[in-house]
């Protein structure tokens, strides 16, 4: 499967996605109107705690629902100058957590250097790992040891605890490779209750919402331990946002309206407070800044007056800024809420 970008699909253009999402006749009120209906102010950031850095769109997988439209055919990657700008911003703001994502960030030739430099500056490093990269090539087999060397938190993703549903979303053989990678992580001490955190992201393999995170975690833990002898720490249940390939899937299967109505209907005012954009800034591979990873994919820059590029972040404050919102934000406020760290309530 090729990315939308490689096939020149109209939806590979972010503005086209925004046009679909912000259609005045579209399902449900505009997001800010919904906040107002509930007597809530526009969404504002609090204090910057996390820098989420997308270091490139290349990935060894081409998942059906990827909101990044990542894949082997995506060549965009962050250069060392931009990485240096990120490090300066981490120092200037005393940023406590650096969340490194992609694509498969480990495929970036400077990934290890960058992760080590973040760690050297006292930041807690999170790596968003798709698992299969660890077994994709011999040169990646030592990734668990590398993660351990910088005490990184590994947030891996696994669509489901069965092979059939996982492979349907991610491709044949992905489940088996993921199990091998999880064994390697467990063998290094990850997920074994020894302080090396191995958390798992679950997002539904289709046009439905995730159930209760706590219940899903119990099921994943029970099934993975019983069937494969695998352990992990926490499960993060994340709602699919109608962006990029997942939006394409919703439109092509005529599930878009139904899915959006479901998100809007499940709007939970108490999930708003904990959304991730309030405490983070997202950096694109080229250094452009956004309120979150989803806004990055939709190319919605931060509010007017805010820095546009990571090179300007060291000398600017982004606390208290207005967060740029859209109908896609219903994905983070549905039910128990959704963020890169799972439920927000």
């Amino acid at each position: 499967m090729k990315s939308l970008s490689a096939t020149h699909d109209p939806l590979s253009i972010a503005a086209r996605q925004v046009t679909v999402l912000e259609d005045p006749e579209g399902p449900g009120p505009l997001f800010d109107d919904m906040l107002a209906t509930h007597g809530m102010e526009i969404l504002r950031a609090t204090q910057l705690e996390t820098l989420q850095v997308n270091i490139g769109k290349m990935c060894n997988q081409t998942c059906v629902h990827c909101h990044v439209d990542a894949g082997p055919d995506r060549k965009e990657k962050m250069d060392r100058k931009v990485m240096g700008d990120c490090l300066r911003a981490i120092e200037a703001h005393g940023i406590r957590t650096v969340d490194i994502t992609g694509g498969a960030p480990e495929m970036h030739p400077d990934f290890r250097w960058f992760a080590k430099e973040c760690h050297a500056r006292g930041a807690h490093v999170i790596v968003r790992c798709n698992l299969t990269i660890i077994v994709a090539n011999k040169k990646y087999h030592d990734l668990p040891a590398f993660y351990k060397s910088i005490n990184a938190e590994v947030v891996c993703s696994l669509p489901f605890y069965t092979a059939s549903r996982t492979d349907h979303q991610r491709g044949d053989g992905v489940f088996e490779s993921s199990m091998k990678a999880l064994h390697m992580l467990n063998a290094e001490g990850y997920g074994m209750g020894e302080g090396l955190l191995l958390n798992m992201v679950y997002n539904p393999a289709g046009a439905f919402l995730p159930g209760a995170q706590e219940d899903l975690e119990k099921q994943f833990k029970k099934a993975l331990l019983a069937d494969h002898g695998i352990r992990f720490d926490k499960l993060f249940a994340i709602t699919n946002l109608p962006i990029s390939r997942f939006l394409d899937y919703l439109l092509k299967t005529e599930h878009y309206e139904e899915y959006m109505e479901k998100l809007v209907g499940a709007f939970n005012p108490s999930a708003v407070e904990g959304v991730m954009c309030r405490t983070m800034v997202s950096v694109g591979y080229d250094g452009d800044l956004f309120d979150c990873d989803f806004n990055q994919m939709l190319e919605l820059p931060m509010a007017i007056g805010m820095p546009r590029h990571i090179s300007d972040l060291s000398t600017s404050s982004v606390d208290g800024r207005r967060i740029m919102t859209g109908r896609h934000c219903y994905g983070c406020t549905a039910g128990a809420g959704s963020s890169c760290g799972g439920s927000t309530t």
Partner: protein
Amino acid sequence: MDKTYYNPADLKKFGNITEFQKELGEKFFSYYGEVFKEGALTAREKSLIALAVAHAVQCPYCIDAYSTDTLEKGCSEEQMMEAVHVAAAIRGGATLVHGVQMMNKVKDLTHG
């Protein structure tokens, strides 16, 4: 007026049954909500039971609703299909167990 007996869009209108009988409708939905809460059975177990019953009573709305609900609650395809087989086994068994009544009648009539 629809030209077919079932329209998937009608599922969303289920709550509208209170339009013709408010009190009983509201009592039903209140009861329904209580039934599906976590109790001695988990919400997930109840959802699988509902999926099985939906097939037994052959309600397309319920099948749609509880296929989605069991998916959301993390059930696997195998678990969902096993629930349907439970419904099928009970329905089949209910037919076959009446075979004993048939046998009793036949024996009564032919063996005097």
